[in-house]
C-alpha cells in the first residue's frame, strides 16, 4: 500500500494514477478482510476499486490523461496535510488498545446487538440487522445523501449540455 501511494504521488500520468488508486482500494479491502470487516471490505472493493475507477476513467476520457504543471509550488497545502495527518496519528495514541474488550465502544449498545439481534430481527448477519433495523434512520439518511448527490451531479451536467444545445 505504501508503494502504491508513493507511485501515485510521483506519477504524472493520470491514467496510471487511477489504476493505482484501484490497486490501493483492493489492498485496503484485503486489510479490512483481515480485520474481519467483510461488509466494509466488499463495499471498498466494489465502490473504491470498481465503480469509482470506471467513473474516473470516464472523466479522464473527457479531460485528457496528463497532469497539468502546478502554477506555484504547493508548500502550504503540503504543510496543512502533514499537520492534519500528524494530529490524527497523535489522536490514535489516545484510543484504547486494539480489540480491547473493555473499550467503551464494546460496552454501550454492542452487547445488546451481538446477543439479541438474531432473536429480535431473525437476521443472522449483525451488520445487516444494525444497518437496516436498529439504525434504520441513519441508513434512510444515507440513502437520501446518495439521492441528493446523484441529483446534484445530474443537474450540474445536464444544465451545461442544454446551454450547449441552445447556442
Amino acid at each position, binding site marked *: 500500500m505504501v508503494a502504491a501511494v508513493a507511485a501515485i504521488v510521483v506519477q504524472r500520468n493520470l491514467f496510471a494514477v487511477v489504476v493505482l488508486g484501484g490497486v490501493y482500494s483492493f489492498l485496503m479491502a484485503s486489510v479490512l478482510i483481515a480485520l474481519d470487516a467483510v461488509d466494509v471490505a466488499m463495499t471498498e472493493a466494489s465502490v473504491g476499486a470498481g465503480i469509482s475507477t470506471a467513473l474516473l476513467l470516464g472523466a479522464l476520457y473527457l479531460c485528457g490523461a496528463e497532469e497539468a504543471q502546478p502554477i506555484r509550488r504547493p508548500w502550504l497545502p503540503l504543510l496543512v496535510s502533514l499537520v492534519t495527518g500528524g494530529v490524527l496519528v497523535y489522536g490514535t495514541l489516545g484510543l484504547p488498545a486494539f480489540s480491547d474488550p473493555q473499550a467503551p465502544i464494546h460496552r454501550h449498545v454492542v452487547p445488546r446487538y451481538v446477543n439479541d439481534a438474531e432473536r429480535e430481527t431473525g437476521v*443472522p448477519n449483525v451488520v445487516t440487522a444494525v444497518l437496516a433495523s436498529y439504525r434504520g434512520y441513519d441508513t434512510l439518511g444515507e440513502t437520501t445523501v446518495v439521492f441528493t448527490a446523484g441529483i446534484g451531479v445530474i443537474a450540474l451536467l445536464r444544465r451545461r449540455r442544454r446551454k450547449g444545445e441552445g447556442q
Partner: protein
Amino acid sequence: MRHYLVLRVIAKLVIPFMLLFALYVQFHGDFGPGGGFQAGVIAAAAMIFYAIVFGLPTARKVVPDRVAETMVALGVLVYAGVGLAGLVLGGNYLDYFVLDHDPVHGQHRGIFWVEAGVAITVSGVMLKIFYMFAGRRSSRDDE
C-alpha cells in the same frame, strides 16, 4: 469496441453472472456479507461493463435514461414508504415489528424492503452518472 470479438463474447457470458451475483449479494445480505449498497453497485457495474463493450446507445436501449432517473427517486421513496407503512399499521416511523403478525417476520420484511430501496437508488445514481459522463463527449462532437 465493435471489433473486439473475444471481449464481446466474454462480456455476454459474464454479465448475466454479474447480475446474478448482485441479486445474491442483495438477498443473501441477511446471512452473509453484503446488502443493498453493494448489490446496487455491482448491478450498476454490470450495466457499465455492457455500455463500455457494446456502446452507449445499446445500453441506453436496455436501461433508458428515464428508467435510471426514476430509480434514483424510487429507492428513497421505497425506503420512506416502509417507514410510512409502519406508521399506518400503528407503530413508529421505520418500526418493522408491526409489518407482520410475527414481529420477527415483520423485521425480516422491513429489512428486505429497506435494502431493496437502497439498492435501487444506488444503482440508479451510479448508472445515471456514468451515462452523463460517457454521453458528454458524443454530445459535444455533435455540435
